[in-house]
């Protein structure tokens, strides 16, 4: 499994050829795209799948009897098989297409949650949750008179497991936890936490928005009840994602949206609903993007998720070491690259992340600056925001070097002293 850095670099070279956008020039500099935690770039195979669909067999699915509708339906439903294999689901009917992670979580909150969360119940969250895995639970808790309870982090942004085992208790009805933090990079011990929660009869939803793109994820091994992710962060198109859930739970849930395709029969006054997974997919679905998402998974499967992970661990370790030498820099999250994903959030004394982002952009480097949809975590860290560089399969050590050099430049532009 361990490759030499040479291997990785030559493979990365091949990969880069599949991403036309990486040739883009920004302010006269070659694009260095380090905003992958926000959204990834898309390989030729994914873009081609869209063009192929629209130019050759675009049709509405399920209800059509003509050839193109059959082809579109087969391709659209076939991707469920691909996803099932990718995350090791038990059955394709557990794979629900959504717009993305956010919609998946809202679906669970508004269907499973409204029925199962009762007054006095506790919903346990980590303090590093993305707004998407926090605000829906705030609203549900307020509606159902339940309480949000937060886990604790250590000084490297890892969950304090002793505190967790006391916090997850008989009152816990739901554990909502990100598999990988989009700020700290922390990979949370979801499996252990899920065991704790299950021991008390609670249900577990894991937010896989940052983990599924970057490491092998097995829903059965993780032992969670619901799992959500977005394709746009994993080489796929915008506008499509997955809610995976245990069949038994999904079956007991009411539908989320109502309309075409999710019904079994409709009368004027009442209707019967379709079986899984269509019960949760009202209206004409995002056919083209689902089909293209299938190609994104196939691309990752060809690389192998172990390769993806190894590549990012190596890149992250290199970047942490390189950036760590800059004066006045603070890097958040676990210090060991093996405990984290390829997301590096940092601040440089006296340099506001916005200014950093702007100045790096002048060198063609795309990073993100701000609260990363994690305002409560920013508060815990005692900062207004952070700068964040995040990696993917096409990034190289050379790009990390460009980043480090540009950070020194930024310090000069802003008349700061930190790096001098």
């Amino acid at each position, binding site marked *: 499994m361990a490759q030499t850095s040479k291997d990785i670099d030559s493979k990365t070279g091949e990969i880069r050829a599949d991403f036309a956008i990486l040739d883009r020039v920004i302010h006269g500099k070659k694009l260095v795209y380090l905003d992958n935690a926000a959204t990834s770039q898309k390989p030729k195979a994914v873009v081609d799948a869209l063009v192929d669909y629209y130019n050759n067999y675009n049709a509405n699915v399920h209800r059509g009897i003509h050839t193109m509708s059959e082809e579109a339906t087969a391709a659209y439903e076939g991707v469920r098989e691909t996803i099932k294999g990718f995350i090791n689901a038990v059955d394709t009917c557990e794979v629900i297409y959504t717009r993305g992670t956010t919609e998946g979580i809202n679906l669970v909150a508004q269907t499973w949650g409204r029925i199962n969360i009762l007054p006095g119940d506790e919903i346990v969250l980590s303090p590093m949750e993305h707004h998407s895995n926090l605000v829906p639970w705030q609203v549900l808790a307020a509606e159902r008179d339940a309480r949000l309870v937060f886990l604790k982090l250590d000084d490297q942004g890892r969950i304090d497991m002793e505190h967790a085992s006391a916090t997850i208790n008989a009152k816990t009805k739901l554990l909502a936890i990100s598999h990988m933090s989009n700020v700290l990079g922390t990979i949370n011990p979801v499996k252990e936490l899920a065991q704790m929660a299950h021991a008390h009869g609670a249900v577990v939803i894991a937010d896989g928005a940052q983990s599924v793109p970057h490491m092998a994820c097995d829903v059965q091994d993780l032992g969670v009840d619901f799992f959500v992710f977005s394709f746009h962060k994993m080489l796929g198109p915008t506008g499509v994602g997955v809610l995976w859930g245990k069949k038994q739970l999904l079956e007991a849930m009411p539908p989320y949206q109502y309309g075409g395709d999710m019904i079994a029969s409709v009368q004027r006054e009442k209707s019967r609903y379709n079986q899984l997974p269509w019960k949760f997919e009202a209206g004409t679905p995002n056919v083209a993007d689902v089909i293209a998402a299938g190609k994104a998974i196939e691309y990752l499967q060809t690389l192998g998720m172990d390769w993806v992970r190894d590549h990012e661990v190596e890149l992250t370790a290199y970047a942490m070491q390189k950036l760590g030498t800059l004066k006045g820099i603070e890097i958040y999250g676990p210090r060991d690259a093996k405990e984290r994903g390829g997301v590096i959030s940092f601040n440089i004394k006296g340099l506001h992340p*916005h200014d950093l982002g702007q100045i790096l952009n*002048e060198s063609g480097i795309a990073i993100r600056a701000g*609260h990363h949809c994690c305002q409560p975590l920013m508060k815990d860290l005692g900062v207004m925001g952070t700068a964040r560089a995040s990696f993917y399969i096409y990034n190289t050590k050379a790009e990390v070097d460009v980043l480090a050099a540009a950070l020194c430049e930024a310090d000069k532009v802003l008349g700061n002293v930190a790096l001098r």
Partner: protein
Amino acid sequence: MSLSDDLYRETILDHYHNPRNNGTIDDATAKIEGVNPLCGDELTLYLNVSEDGKIQDVKLQAHGCSINMASGSMMSEAVMGQSVERAKEIIETFKEMMLNKEQDVPLEDDLEDLEALRGVKKYPVRIKCALLPWNTLLDGLAEACAAKK
């Protein structure tokens, strides 16, 4: 034009590193918080408005980027001692300078210092940073006037 010419001019960096009228007012006529929801920049603005509608004192506590901080600092200098009416005119002029897509809006001579922020207009994302203090002031003036009645 480079980034340093547009955004990070010396005047701006000076206001950023040494913000004017930084602090609080104990018995403020109005105290207003401003937030930029997308980047999380925060700002608390304190105002003392006299009976006859003069801005006697204005203080800011800001946590933001260079543009945000410099804009607030320059604003405080521009409106200090002005009448509420004149302050509103100045806000209007400044917003026009930032937001008018058709033409370059000139500044009156006495607002010359604000010229340094004109370059921000080229960076749409940063316009919000520059405007936050001004919008907060607008809210503050409304509150101060309401309090007087």
